[in-house]
């Protein structure tokens, strides 16, 4: 079981590295999916099968789909941004390397073996609807807020607004017209 953990960990790390370094956007996203699958396996080894399943379904399934849709929507093809010299990586690499070193050093001072008992889906669901019931409600409100925000941002501008009506809006300000008169849909630039 521990070997499986280390293999999955290695895969995950490698995949994430590739996500970050690939020029091509779609390739990057695909490597991200691979990394998520690797993490799901790690979860399994850590005795959290329910979460592993969720990782695959929600993360890999839903969120990555969003990414792919977005890429498709913005029809970016492989239009990769100008080749950034690898030297651009030095600054962040150093900074992050130091961060990583600090955390790893701290963690390697003494190690405790994991309890090993597997925490199944039942235990999670009991906790979920036990002490964390309020949190679930809050999570739902979180998703509602995200829903409203996303639809508002992504939706077209108000259909009845045209250039003319904008002028009329300004006229209103100088006291010549009324505010509630509807206008015509403003054609946004191509999607």
């Amino acid at each position, binding site marked *: 079981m521990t070997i499986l953990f280390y293999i999955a960990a290695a895969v995950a790390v490698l995949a994430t590295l590739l996500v970050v370094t690939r020029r091509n956007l779609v390739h990057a996203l695909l490597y991200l999916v691979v990394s998520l699958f690797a993490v799901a396996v790690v979860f399994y080894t850590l005795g959290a099968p329910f979460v592993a399943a969720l990782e695959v379904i929600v993360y890999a399934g839903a969120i990555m789909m969003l990414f792919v849709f977005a890429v498709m929507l913005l029809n970016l093809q492989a239009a990769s941004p100008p080749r950034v010299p690898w030297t651009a990586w030095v600054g*962040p690499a150093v*900074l*992050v390397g*130091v*961060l990583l070193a*600090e*955390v790893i*050093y*701290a963690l390697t001072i003494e190690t405790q073996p994991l309890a090993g008992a597997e925490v199944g889906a039942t235990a999670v669901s009991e906790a979920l609807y036990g002490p964390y019931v309020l949190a679930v409600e809050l999570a739902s409100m979180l998703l509602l807020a995200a829903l409203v925000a996303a639809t508002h941002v992504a939706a077209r501008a108000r259909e009845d607004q045209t250039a003319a009506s904008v002028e009329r809006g300004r006229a209103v300000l100088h006291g010549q017209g009324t505010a509630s008169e509807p206008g015509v849909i403003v054609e946004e630039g191509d999607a």
Partner: protein
Amino acid sequence: MLSLLWLIPALPAAGFVLLVLLNRRLGRAGAAWIGAGSVGLSMLAALLVCGSFIVSPPAGDACRQVLWTWMDVAGFTPAIGFYLDAVSVVWVLVITVVGFLIHLYSTEHMEHDEGFTRFFTYLNLFVFSMLVLVLADNLLLLYLGWEGVGLCSYLLIAFWQKDPQNVYSGRKAFIVTRVGDTALIAGLFLLLTQLGTLEIQPLLRAAEQTWAPDSTVAVVAALLILGGAVGKSAQVPLQTWLPDAMAGPSPVSALIHAATMVTAGVYLIARTTPLFELAGDARLAVALVGIVTLLIAGFSALVQHDLKRALAYSTISQIGYMILALGVSGWEAGVFHFGTHAFFKALLFLGAGVVIEALAGEHDIFKMGGLARKLPAVFVTFTVGAAALAALPFVTNGFYSKDLVISTTLGTADGNVWLYVGSILGAFVTTLYSFRLVWVVFFGEAHTEVTRRPRWRQTMPLWVLAVFSIITGFLWLPAWIGAFHPLEDFLDTALPPIEWTGRYAHFAESAGAAFVIILIVYGGIFLSYLLWVPWRRGTHAFAASPVVRPLAAFWLGGWGFDWLYERVFVRPVKWFAHWARHDLVDYVVDGIAWVNLAGWRTLSAGQTGRLRSYVAVAGFGVVLVLAVVVLR
């Protein structure tokens, strides 16, 4: 009758206030009547009060009249009160009599001046301040009068304020005298702290009781008072302002810079004799100041071209004699010489005023000449004054007072030969320059035309002063002539009598010493006649010769004091003021402001607007903190 004492200073004060309030609506005549009138009334009051004081002296030979307590702070309670004793009687009489005569003279002399009312306003204020000075019963009120006269001398020197040079002379006078006043006020603080009060008589009693003779505090107190006197009486080292003070009108020079104000220092030392009796070294210092001043001023007077500057240096020299007399504990001799000097010096200045006015403002004596016939009255009175100045034996009052002073320099315990020789030399030089003026101004051929004739209001004071210059001498005949010395007996009530206890006391009192002076005076007169009448060209050539000319120039400039003070005091202050005029501390303040601005510039440059730099800064912050955590 003594209860009217407060009236003497009150009248000129009332005159001053009236003139200030009614300034616009008062014509010349009105101003003249109020101005001269108030001083005249004050003279009458003075005569009445002093007369009754002399005739029936009050208990303790002094009377004190307190109007109200000036202030009452922590046991220090100076009062606005007047104290009259023998010394202040002499001064009051001189001030009021000479003052009134000069006011009368001024009504005509200043007739054509557009600041006529303003002139009398300042004069009245001066007379009030001078009377307060001499009548004050405590040193703080004395200091009030002291600074009041300083102010009036500034206002009157700078009276013709259109010409910046006059204003500069006025400022110079006020500032130099103020330097002296600083020493005086320091003396006041010392006396107040050590003796608890500033009222003169109790202060002197307390000093005599608590201070051991020649103790440091006594010497320091006396020296500080001397410092004040030196400033006001234009003695070395603070004498540079008096020659420049001649920029003022002649009556001002006569009243302030001859008769009254410049002798305030003498009055102060005479008033505080016990302090000087306690401090032997201080008396020596006084004597030295006196002798040095009289010589320097004498030689300077010898070479002056300007009539009034010559008289100014002569005044400094004569006051040097008074200070010298005080220095050798000849207190009464100093007072006597003040009395006589006031009359003949006022006479000389008024005469000079008439001469200058007659020659349409010409000051240079070598451009005058031959005025004896044109202005006979002035010639006679001026000559009497010059004779008194030169101490023409037996006839003039100057002889009796100067003879007494010179003999005290030899006769008293503090006297010594060097002082005597110096005073003799001084007497000789005085005779030379006084008669030089007479020969050069009134004899020889006339250079400028006489345009104005003085009328009675200017000549009458000259005659009165001439008479006084003669008769006041007889108030104190020397021992070898007769026993008639009412002035000495009168002054004994307030001042310690002169003790002829010096080594040569016998010779000093005898006719021998007087004979020496008589010889000196006659020799001087004859020599001056030769030099400036028959051998006039020779003297000019001699004065212009390469050897003598630099010496003459040095004397002309008042022995280089002005030159020295300009470099040592005036220039550094002016330079620093100019250099620091934008306030040095402001550079520090602006520097701090600049640092803040620099901080703003760098930080706002840091706000690049790019998202990745924001994340980098955040990341850097976290890494920094974690490093500290891990390493501690």
